[in-house]
């Protein structure tokens, strides 16, 4: 339960994303650090903890953005099955698979997001959205992954040195 101490940190990432992401565009899109942090967390520490963090962080982000509450929670859901799938295919290093999984999570996020927006009558053009937003955003989020992956990895390694990991498979 000690990971709950990091909840404010995750909420801060959501807050920083809403407040400042538009200042740092790349390829015409802004990054989704919340998605990247949660995905790295799920890969490094197992998906169980993110099952608590996703509803909290997603709801908070929607409350302070123009989205209907629940959209981000729904769009972040694929993180858990993606991380669970990744766990079944262990590799020597987590880093490269994390990049691939972040790209996948980013694609799923935007697809679900666009589906909800379309359902509530606020949808963008799908073809344009796919080419101009979904793919560049997946690339941007993947490029951003090392910035968040390494601190999560180091923090986990450090905590395991102090106390052996209690990672429980789901």
């Amino acid at each position: 339960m000690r990971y709950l101490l990091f909840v404010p940190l995750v909420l801060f990432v959501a807050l920083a994303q809403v407040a400042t992401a538009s200042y740092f565009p790349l390829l015409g899109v802004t990054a989704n650090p919340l998605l990247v942090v949660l995905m790295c967390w799920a890969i490094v520490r197992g998906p169980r903890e993110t099952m608590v963090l996703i509803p909290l962080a997603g709801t908070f982000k929607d409350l302070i953005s123009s989205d209907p509450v629940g959209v981000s929670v729904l769009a972040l859901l694929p993180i858990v099955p993606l991380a669970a799938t990744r766990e079944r295919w262990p590799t020597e290093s987590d880093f490269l698979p994390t990049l691939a999984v972040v790209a996948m999570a980013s694609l799923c996020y935007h697809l679900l997001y666009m589906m909800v927006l379309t359902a509530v009558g606020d949808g963008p053009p799908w073809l344009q959205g796919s080419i101009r937003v979904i793919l560049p955003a997946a690339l941007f989020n993947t490029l951003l992954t090392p910035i968040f992956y390494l601190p999560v990895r180091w923090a986990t390694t450090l905590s395991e040195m102090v106390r052996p990991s209690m990672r429980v498979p789901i």
Partner: protein
Amino acid sequence: MRTLVWLLVVGLFALLAILLSQLGALDPLKNGALTVASPLERGLRTVASPAADFLDNAADRQDLEEENRLLRQQIEELTAEIASLKESEFTATDLAGLAEVEESRPGDQFLVARVIARDPSNLKERLAIDRGSDDGVAEGMVVMSQGQSLVGLISKVLDDFAWVTLITDTNSNVNAMVLESRAQGVVSGSLHGGLSMDLIPQDAKVEPGDTVTTSGLGGNLPQALLIGQVAAVRGEAQDVFRKAEVEPAASLSRLENVLVLTSFIATHLASP
């Protein structure tokens, strides 16, 4: 199995929340969250803005950047002034319809609002301002930049905050006209923050550099409000309509403060 149950439960919770949100039941909660978060967001934006400028420009070009910003603001103000003067010229040459509309807006009243957040989704062009229904802001009100060009419309109002849908949003359509030729069309937003003017009659004379303003058609926007300038004109001779790319007059990605036009009452015309 456990993952599946979690997915179902959280998925249903999210769908229920979306439904409640659409019905406006969660608006007080959103207002409360923004009240708590807005000072922090403002602080983060204050820190991020120079950081973004630094990344955009090399450190030794900061003076140039400042000068550029001031010049852009001046250009925007002067273009708005030119648009206003040209409009006056048309009014003076006995365009009674225009004069009527001009005279129906004797004194515009503005409310200054600070931008506190911007939608981070990439799929919507919206920003949050620190004024809400308690300050007299209402849905459909016109939002302008400090240079008095069109920024967007209020699309969602909470007690102390409001969300502005920018003219560059994909769902934004504004009846517009090219000031020089009086050609009318519809300015629409697109992903990546661009603007395009569609439905321009084939025989209309439209050239790069022409000024695009609101036409006032439909009654939901005032007339002769600066939108931007024509950057390029597209379309073949056989096309029924032509299309123009429009460069917004306001720097929409870096807005810090905006003006809400509270005196203009939108009229929604019903079909006869």
